[in-house]
């Protein structure tokens, strides 16, 4: 089967995303995650909400967590793409978020961080 036009573009984009995920350095992502630990944990809500269950979760939806109105109204669902955008400049993507953090500027750091969160979400700590 030959792919043309939009189909080819989609196939290339999916292939590119898959390749990027495959190249992610999860161990480095865990190091990057250390930046988050003043406010976040995998299993428990802290200043920020828990990260177990993050992938596929609607933003602002952890029961009982006191989100900003901005986050509750953001209509985001967390996946690789939305996380990458948000982590780059949180306040630009969700103005008014309580995550008053300038962001993770390096694309590789973000990719590895997201890969770590994804792996942790599928791992034993989040499955307990």
């Amino acid at each position, binding site marked *: 089967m030959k792919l043309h036009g939009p189909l080819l573009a989609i196939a290339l984009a999916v292939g590119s995303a898959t390749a990027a995920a495959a190249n992610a350095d999860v161990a480095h992502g865990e190091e*990057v995650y*250390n*930046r*988050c*630990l*003043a*406010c976040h*944990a995998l*299993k*428990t*809500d*802290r*200043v920020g909400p828990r990260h177990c269950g993050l992938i596929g979760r609607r933003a602002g939806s952890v029961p009982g967590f006191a989100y*900003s109105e901005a986050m509750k109204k953001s209509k985001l669902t967390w996946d690789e793409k939305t996380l990458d955008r948000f982590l780059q400049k949180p*306040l630009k993507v969700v103005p*008014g978020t*309580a*995550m*008053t*953090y*300038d*962001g993770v500027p390096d694309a590789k*750091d973000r990719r590895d961080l997201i890969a770590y969160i994804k792996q942790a979400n599928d791992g034993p700590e989040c499955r307990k």
Partner: protein
Amino acid sequence: MSFFAMPTPVAARRLFLGRSGLVLSGAAVALLAGNEALAKKAGDGKAGDVQILNTALGAELEAIAAYQVGAESKLLQKPVLDLAVTFQGHHKEHADVLAKTIAKLGGKPVSAKAKYDFPVDQLKSQNDVLKFAAKLEQGAVSAYLGAVPLFGNRDLAKAAASILGDEAMHWAILRNALGEAPVPSAFMA
């Protein structure tokens, strides 16, 4: 001389502060809390600055609670216990100045939670407590680093940087206590 070889934590702290010049930065924070003109200078960034300060305050209150868990765990031996209490005292000072500044800016400071959910089941030794505290302090340094460029008011950014410096020292000393390189890199992220 190692900070842990100093006769008292206060002496260790004095040595560190004396060398780092952060006494002046600490004074800047204290001045900030009493500066009535600050609210007037906050201008358009006021709401954003209050949110930044409140997020920081929430993290400081959590750090105070975490050190309390460590101090009451009976896992910490002197002089580590004394140092942990000293560090907790710093976080209390940070929280106090942040809360006062938020109030001066017309905001409502967040309160400590009635209960914090820490991984106490994983704290079985002094090293476990130190590692937990070190992770929190490292995260705090990164959090302040990520907050500093966001402030509309440069005096607030300076004050946040002063707190950042203190928490970086906590992190370094905790790493040292764990036998790790106290300062693992030339830059923080």
